[in-house]
């Protein structure tokens, strides 16, 4: 590119696009007619502007159905959001009033107490053997000679005899 071209270089594209101010058009035209280099650039730019349109495409058969499905989800989300917002505004209005404030403090205390109750440490589980002995407490209470430790040594035999006796009575 010649030095004389440099002051026109920036105007060539706008000139071809018809976007150059009228007062500069005549000067650029004169230069382009006289300059083979700029004339080639202008010709190339005109060809660029005349490039054929790419073929148009049509929305696919699924396009509409997919869109309305997506939109249904958006609507549902909006409705849920609106419902949530309504509750939030009601709650905000309630808790910011003095009466609501004292009530909410009471409510919070109640929730705290209930939470403490629910989170209390659980009772230690009784060992299985102790539970079995506890189930037989009735029998122990009906033993005639509890002082006799030998009776306790034969407890299982006594228990069996007691069951047989109960069966006969039954």
């Amino acid at each position, binding site marked *: 590119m010649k030095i004389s071209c440099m002051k026109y270089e920036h105007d060539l594209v706008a000139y071809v696009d018809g976007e150059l101010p009228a007062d500069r058009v005549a000067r650029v035209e004169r230069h382009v007619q006289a300059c083979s280099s700029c004339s080639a*650039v202008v010709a190339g730019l005109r060809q660029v502007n005349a490039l054929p349109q790419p*073929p148009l495409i049509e929305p696919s058969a699924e396009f509409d159905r997919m869109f309305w499905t997506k939109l249904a989800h958006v609507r549902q989300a909006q409705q849920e959001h609106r419902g949530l917002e309504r509750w939030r505004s009601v709650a905000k209005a309630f808790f910011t009033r003095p009466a609501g404030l004292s009530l909410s403090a009471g409510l919070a205390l109640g929730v705290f107490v209930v939470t403490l109750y629910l989170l209390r440490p659980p009772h230690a589980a009784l060992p299985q053997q102790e539970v079995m002995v506890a189930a037989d407490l009735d029998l122990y209470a009906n033993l005639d000679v509890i002082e006799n430790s030998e009776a306790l040594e034969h407890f299982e035999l006594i228990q069996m005899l007691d069951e047989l006796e109960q069966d006969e009575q039954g």
Partner: protein
Amino acid sequence: MGAVLENIEKQHHNDPNVQLMLRFQGGEEGAFRKLFEEYRGPLLNFIYRYCQDRRIAEELTQEVFLRVYKSSGSYRPEAMFSTWIYRIATNICLNELRTGRYKYEIEFKGPDEHDDSMQYDPVDERTKVKTDEQMAAAEQQRQVQGALEKLPKKQRLALILSIYDQLSYREIGQRLGCSEAAVKSIIHRSKLALRDILKKGGLVN
């Protein structure tokens, strides 16, 4: 400032599509359906020319309408409806394709499996024969598309609007959300760059 905005809004009240959008804002769902039916084709083609993938173009076109739907509450007619909706489409093209799965798909995709309009196909469904002219046109189209894809995203969008839609610099600026002077600069650089690429391929002088 408020008065200026009000004046601008009044100017666009005559646009029938602005009217439709305002009716939709007022709760008339049918107005939204009309806008959808009128703009889905042009927007799909605009986005498709940019990303060159039919499936992605369809998803992004749907996204444009979802945003129109969601923004109905805050809509103000500060521009012609077409300017407004194309600006949404432009932002989606520039932002959605820059990150996430679309970026991956665009950068690493092979020939577009979802599209048959741009591919070289020697057999025409109707005539069963493609003429030399048709094949040359398809080849040229592919080269132009390849050249466009070598350009930065904003330059590519500006060129699509300038060459294919033949919009003025002012209209391009409105759609891209930038000044006329900025558009002039973008178009200047991008058209010279495109011409250089096509010149190397022997498509232009």
